[in-house]
């Protein structure tokens, strides 16, 4: 793709329009990734008012569409979720309408494109610089299948760009260009360094020198990002900026340098040894998004920014529960997240041995933990997150007014009264967690019910206790946090409605917070509670 990369600056539109000729039309193809529920291109950059010809090529085995939307009324980027939700709410009519709701936010859309087919639409990009989300409105896809049309002003490509093409013999590192004899030279009016011009000539052992002028829009720090296979060197004003000599698989290197406003000489030496050849170079300065100085390939590994480090590897739950153990925000370092088919999820805390989180919608994004060193806690990917707290579920209390037992602290030795025993999967791969406390064996199983899409989602938590030496004054903490009793249910933190069966819930205020505790009464050495959490608030 040769579209320019652009900037969302609050520039005066009139001055912009009078100063610049109309932007060149842009043609772009967005593909769907097979079996990944994702577009291959999640960001399209165009100048305001650009005529865009967009092809949605569906390489997946499910039908998908692409619906381009205005930003949400409050100006936030909801990734088109509001429009997608309106599509889901069409119910049966949705099929007939191809999941396109009547919604003022829609700017343009494709029809529902069947697997391995494509459709092309043409539209004019809005005049106002902003991110315009696009999304697949097929029910259930929107959480991960979205992107943004970025409308804004661009960092320019290279002025007066020239190339010289060389061939060599068995190149294994950057050659001394002064000693090479050029085969051909010419201009690149696109202003982007292309290494594919002679690909019909040979695939191995060649080199390019590119020279031109970079027009810096202001004084400041500019960061350059470069990856090359086999190798390349970037020089600005004759000075080395990045040297990535081969042969190595391509990796992005970056370097920040200070440049003054105006033109600077840019030179790149690139060489190819054998097999894969690639060259990517982009630049950025504060206030402008990153802009390519090479033809930007959408299928190439992009340099990761902070956002990309934590988003983009959603763990999709298909027909059986999926487990993800890691550092999970709202739980802790021993989080065991379970995503159930139907769009209901839990996170069980193996430090506290208690349920920590429940939520609806998408499960978890593994990008943070599966990139680089995997630092930090990752929150749930879905919505309707009920944060049940990091608390012990069982405790012996002196009386029913005594404060709840302290939680396990991460930096303290483990309380030997509680022992985690792991989990076992049933035939449907649904885990049952097991632990014991003072000789009481406890199991917890979760059964999702209803459906997230129809707004009837709930999850049933079945807690079974057994012991041959009953413990006196044993209590189970059902809820801790903002609780509002409503009929026979408790609304928790305005998120979920909770009903409790199998015990006598005692709502109390303790140390300044609401709690619902259950005295544990053993019958024939057994006790059982069923706690139901529903997002359908009463």
């Amino acid at each position, binding site marked *: 793709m040769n579209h320019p990369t652009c900037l969302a600056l609050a520039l005066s539109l009139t001055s912009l329009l009078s100063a610049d000729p109309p932007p060149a039309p842009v043609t772009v193809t967005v593909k769907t990734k097979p079996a990944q529920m994702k577009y291959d291109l999640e960001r399209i950059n165009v100048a305001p008012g650009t005529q865009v010809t967009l092809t949605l090529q569906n390489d997946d085995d499910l039908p998908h569409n692409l619906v381009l939307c205005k930003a949400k009324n409050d100006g936030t980027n909801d990734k088109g979720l509001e429009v997608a939700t309106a599509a889901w709410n069409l119910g049966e009519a949705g099929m007939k309408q191809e999941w396109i709701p009547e919604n003022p936010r829609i700017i343009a859309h494709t029809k529902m494109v069947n697997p391995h087919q494509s459709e092309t639409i043409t539209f004019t990009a809005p005049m106002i610089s902003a991110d315009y989300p696009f999304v697949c409105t097929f029910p259930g896809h929107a959480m991960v299948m979205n992107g943004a049309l970025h409308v804004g002003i661009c960092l320019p490509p290279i002025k007066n760009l020239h190339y010289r093409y060389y061939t060599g013999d068995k190149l294994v590192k950057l050659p001394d260009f002064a000693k090479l004899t050029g085969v051909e030279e010419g201009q690149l009016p696109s202003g982007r360094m292309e290494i594919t011009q002679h690909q019909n000539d040979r695939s191995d052992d060649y080199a390019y020198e590119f020279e031109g002028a970079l027009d810096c829009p202001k004084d400041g720090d500019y960061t350059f990002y470069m990856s090359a296979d086999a190798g390349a060197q970037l020089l600005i004003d004759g000075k080395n900026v990045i040297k990535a000599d081969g042969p190595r698989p391509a990796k992005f290197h970056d370097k920040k340098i200070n440049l003054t406003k105006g033109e600077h000489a840019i030179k790149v030496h690139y060489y190819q040894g054998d097999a894969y050849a690639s060259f990517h170079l982009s630049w950025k300065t504060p206030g402008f998004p990153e802009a390519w100085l090479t033809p930007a390939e959408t299928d190439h590994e992009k340099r990761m920014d902070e956002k990309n480090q934590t988003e983009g590897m959603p763990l999709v739950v298909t027909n059986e529960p999926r487990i993800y153990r890691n550092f999970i925000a709202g739980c802790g370092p021993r989080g065991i997240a379970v995503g159930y088919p139907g769009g209901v999820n839990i996170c069980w805390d193996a430090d506290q041995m208690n349920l920590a989180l429940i939520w609806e919608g998408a499960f978890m994004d593994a990008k943070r933990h599966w990139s680089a060193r995997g630092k930090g806690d990752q929150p749930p990917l879905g919505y309707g997150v009920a944060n049940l707290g990091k608390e012990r579920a069982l405790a012996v209390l002196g009386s029913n007014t005594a404060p709840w037992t302290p939680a396990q602290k991460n*930096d303290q030795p483990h309380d030997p009264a509680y022992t985690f025993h792991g*989990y*076992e999967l049933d035939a449907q791969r649904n885990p049952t967690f097991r632990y014991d406390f003072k000789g009481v064996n406890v199991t917890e199983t979760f059964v999702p019910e209803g459906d997230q899409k129809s707004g009837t989602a709930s999850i049933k938590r079945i807690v079974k206790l057994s012991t041959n030496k009953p413990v006196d004054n044993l209590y189970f903490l059902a809820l801790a946090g903002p609780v509002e009793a409503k009929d026979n249910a408790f609304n928790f933190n305005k998120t979920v409605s909770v009903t409790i069966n199998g015990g006598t819930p005692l709502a109390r205020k303790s140390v300044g917070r609401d709690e619902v505790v259950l005295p544990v009464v053993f019958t024939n050495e057994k006790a059982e509670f069923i706690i139901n959490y529903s997002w359908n608030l009463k």
Partner: protein
Amino acid sequence: MRHTFLLTSLFSFAISVQSPAASGSDPKEAEYYKIESFAPPQDCVAEVGSIELMPDGKIAFGTRRGEIWTVENAFDADITKAKFTKFAEGLHEILGLAWKDGWLYVTQRPELSRLKDKDGDGRADIFETVNAGWSITGDYHEYAFGSRPDKQGNIYVALCLTGSFHSNAPWRGWCVRITPDGKMQPFAAGLRSPGGIGFIPDGEIFYDDNQGVWNGSSSLKHLKQGAFEGHPEPLKWWDLANGALGKKPLATVDKSRVEAERKHNPNYVPPAVVLPHAHVGNSPTAWDWDESGKFGPFTKQLFIADQTFSTLNRIFIEKVNDVYHGACFPFLKGLRSGPIGVRMSGDGTALFVGGSDRGWGARGGYPAAIERVRWTGKVPFEIHEMRAKPDGFELTFTSPIDPASAKNPDSYKAREYTWALREEYGGPEVDEVIPKIEVVSVGQDAKSVRIKVTPLTKGHVHQISLLGVKSAEGQNLLHPTGYYTLNEIPKK
């Protein structure tokens, strides 16, 4: 950059067409040991953290993404016959696998677990926690590396610090022992950043620590009950052991030396084999050894991986005055990624190596890899063993040497050096000594040489390069340098 080598390539050494080779293979080394890469299916990101041999002839590997895969036909001459099957997923950074009594024991960040496929569908369904007795604050550096079981069935877990410097929770910076009945016993303190834990052929437990604070260089270290490995921060949990480990060791003195610290602190265990930083590697991980002889001449020596250099080094270890020490030698370059898991097959026909460069980078350049190394049957001309003697060293060779070249003292070049024990990160080589080398004798079979090294310096690495020693056929040594860590000087 090529991802598969063709015979028509500019490289002159022969390599099989179907097996993609590591990008940095050394043609000379490849004559003797060949690296072959498996091609996992697309849904398998083989960020290998540990490898185990399964009783049914498969291998299993656990990954940093928390998956366990089994590989059928891993020994087949045609590596493309390998068949990958996912056994388990959803675990947390797997850095230890061990098959025991019908269970696959898995050391993952939060716990030692054991897994079983109860219903026989090829996927684990029991995930039983054997022990989760250590704490985690949520720092990415708080890794847990698990050993295989010892003869009594104990599994040892090496617990990395919180970051590089701190032990913010029990038992960070410790080795703990998990008994067969699931009890955790604090075992040794003062670990910094373990990269691997396991045994040596005599059954003793070791780990390797990575260069950083209190570790001027990475090294292989002996773990014994109550031992102190040098990083003082984990000592703060000593009293939680309730006296089981005896008196609390003294904190290491900043800018001290190994020898001084041994005198100062009876629990302090000196590094057994230093892997000199930047000479042979940067970040040691797992190791294994061969007892069959089918992996070449280095029976019972350790092959230890280096994640950063994408290499294997070789270790000869011996015990003098009840203290372990020995030598390391470069062995094989050119692994694809940053190796973390290593397992030798029982029959010695393949050494399985796998890893990931995620977060740290490795010379191999690939983000993940599972590979195998096989001996071609050709014996490389190498230093075989290097033993400490009262006045120097005895070196043996894998094939006969040219006695004239071995008798010439100019064929040898030596340096002795160490590192300060510092609370700062890493540090330079210090206290350098250039010793005098005299050749005492060449063995009658022309496969050994006795050299006198004056002086010998306790606590120093003795780096000896045999640049002029030739084989009977006039060849140079494939790897001419040995690095001997001399903790004790034998009496005879």
